[in-house]
């Protein structure tokens, strides 16, 4: 039980760090990667676009709430670990591969764009690709949204940004409630 106890001790120590500390756990001697999309604590957030008096299809964007997105790497040590690159991409879930759906009606993912703000990276982070404004592709994954490296071994490094999503409102579409899911994937290569 000594190792298990040690694991909890490290988690407690990380809790004092900003951002992703509560989502990381250290096990053995490996590196750790972290991903935060929206709220902490296991909640899957929903970005809502609700028209008020704005007519549909006028190309006046409808904004949703800002969503914090963060990726992190705890480089446990050694030159090799510092060289590892952590990258973030996003893809539609299988059930909404072609876009947001309302019955048989589809709003393509290309209608959803985003801007970024409050970009923060920790000391010791090399941001290879920084957060930037963009739009989802019609199908399939995005290009890399963010990627980082720890500049030195044994470093906890992260990049954070607030993503504000907008519905472009380009076309007149059938009335309805459209839903879809985007899956964010962080990978360490």
């Amino acid at each position, binding site marked *: 039980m000594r190792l298990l106890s040690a694991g909890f001790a490290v988690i407690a120590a990380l809790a004092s760090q900003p951002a992703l500390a509560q989502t990381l756990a250290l096990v053995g001697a490996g590196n*750790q990667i972290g991903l935060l999309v929206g709220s902490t604590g296991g909640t899957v957030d929903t970005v809502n676009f609700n028209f008020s008096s704005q007519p549909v299809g006028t190309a006046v964007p409808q904004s949703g709430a800002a969503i914090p997105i963060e990726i992190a790497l705890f480089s446990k040590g050694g030159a090799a670990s510092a060289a590892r690159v952590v990258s973030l991409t996003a893809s539609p879930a299988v059930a909404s591969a072609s876009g947001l759906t309302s019955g048989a009606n589809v709003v393509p993912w290309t209608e959803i764009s985003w801007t970024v703000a409050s970009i923060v990276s920790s000391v010791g982070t090399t941001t290879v690709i920084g957060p930037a404004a963009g739009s989802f592709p019609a199908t399939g994954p995005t290009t890399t949204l963010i990627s980082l490296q720890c500049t030195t071994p044994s470093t906890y490094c992260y990049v954070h940004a607030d993503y504000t999503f907008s519905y472009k409102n380009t076309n007149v579409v059938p009335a309805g409630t459209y839903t879809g*899911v985007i899956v964010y994937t962080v990978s360490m290569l």
Partner: protein
Amino acid sequence: MKPTARSIAAALVLALCALPTPGWGFSTVSATNVGNVATLTANLNFSLVVPRFLLLRVGSIGVIDSISFNPTAAQVGTGAVIAGTGGDLGGGAVTVLAQGNSTGTGSLVYQTTTAALTDGTQTIAWSTIQVASAGSATIAHPAALSNASATPVTISSGLAGVFNLSATWTYSWSDGGTVNPASSYSGRVAYSLSQP
């Protein structure tokens, strides 16, 4: 090899860490195993609520346009086609936009608010006003206004489901060779778009 309490505990921690957690997660990969790829995923839901709506624009936004025809004395009774003035596009032309997104089939109609153009006493038939349409053929205006004002006149009855149509209507006037009493005649045409 028989598992020890220590190895079981380590395996338990590793298993817990491998569980995907909605909204956030974590994973581990060996620092020495450079060939491995570690991944984490997190979901984000999107919801778009599109309300039912119906939009009709004829001419300027928020203003009732006036189209005027001013024949010269030499043109009276000749049947000459007199171009209009006014309208949001000028020259007696107006912008037309019809949009809807419900499931039913909509219709676009017009109705004159008086039986004829009138100066209060004398009248000139509405049918002396011609309308040229450009743009969407679905909402092409009848070539001349109808004299019947008791019931709406249908411009289009096939506006099914989602539609987003635009056109330009250009109004002109001709007395058709009739000499009308000198005066100023006026009237109003009301356009209506509906969709169940």
